[in-house]
């Protein structure tokens, strides 16, 4: 499972559209950000074609830990 964080809700919506089925928008986990924005959970792999200008970072979820694999 992977999670992508965004600068705003619009970025998350565009991301979800590109990833397609299996991508779920949720509030961003507190462990990832002090902002209360929207993030996208999706099954990997992460592809650069998913990137939009409002994408901040992509993490791999490992239990309760998040490993950053991409930063925009």
């Amino acid at each position, binding site marked *: 499972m992977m999670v992508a964080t965004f*600068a*705003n*809700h*619009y*970025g998350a*919506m*565009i991301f979800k559209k590109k990833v397609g089925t299996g991508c779920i*928008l*949720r*509030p961003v*986990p*507190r*462990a990832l950000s*002090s*902002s*209360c*924005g*929207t993030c996208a959970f999706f099954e990997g792999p992460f592809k650069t074609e998913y990137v*939009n*200008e*409002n994408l901040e970072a992509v993490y791999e979820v490992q239990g*309760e830990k998040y490993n950053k694999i991409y930063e925009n």
Partner: protein
Amino acid sequence: MTISKEKRNLAIAGILIGIISIVLVLLGNPKNMGFCIACFVRDIAGATKLHSAGVVQYVRPEIIGLVFGSFLISLLTKEFNPRGGSSPMIRFCIGFMVMIGALVFLGCPFRMVLRLSGGDLNAVVGILGFAAGIGIGSFFLSKGFSLGRAQKQSIVEGAALPAVNVLLLILFVAVPALFAFSEKGPGSMHAPILISLAAGLIVGCLAQRTRMCMVGGFRDLFLLKDGTLLFGFIAIFVAALVMNLATGNFKLGFTGQPVAHSAHLWNFLGMVVVGLGCTMLGGCPLRQLILAGEGNSDSAITVLGLLMGAAFAHNFSLAGVAGSADSVGGPGTNGKVAVILCLVILVGIACAKTFKKKEK
């Protein structure tokens, strides 16, 4: 951290904040006003002579504490992150309008919950308007509304508002003659300075750690079907309700409520402005103070918009007038026109920032 842990932390923080709010009332703050970001920023605008309404002038240490508490805890946890440049002028204007809506209702979302916990049923009308405003804002978000991405800023930029707050506190304590202070009315009612400051610091830390935001709660509920952030305010309500019942400060009804009016339409529309504006800003007035403490200069600009909105609200008689035995109170003609104008302008900004966007 799992969602359930977030709910638990929000509930604990909410209970503490609810208790602190009522303790502040018991120690001198106006009833149902242990905390009110709109009222307290308005009082600071009065104390610094930006307006001359004699009954609402005081340098509220709670506001200083909120910003500085968030600043300190974000430094300690390495979450201090100076950023900004996301439509600052539009944010200033929205902050300005949010304050007008809040002062027509006579309270921010935080005080709305505290008013409800004191039995003030006018707050129910406010909550309906607030939710309606967030619903409208959520519609625009779902259609692509954005004020643009914030960029990294210098530490000096991020620390400017916390530093201004410290300077204000030093001047308030060392040279109080510089400021105007109410001799009667809500501005004259306050808890001791050190206790107010400590309360602000604690609540600032708790709100930063838990991301407490009532706008975010409703927005997530509408857009993502997730009400996690609402847990904090539900906990504040329950804790404050229990404290009010225990201390004899609970009085159920529409009339005779402290610093409140029963002009229902304007309570509703005032909070529509607050709900819509705050959804566009990405957080309620409390959240703007907390984000400003974390180094977000967009939120700092929004706080200045709130301050200026408060000054205009009182200089141009836009704020609601509290009800009395003879009158339900409410805003005058100026205030009613201002609320309608704010709604039209907010929807106009939302349309302009939603429907001309190109997908990138």
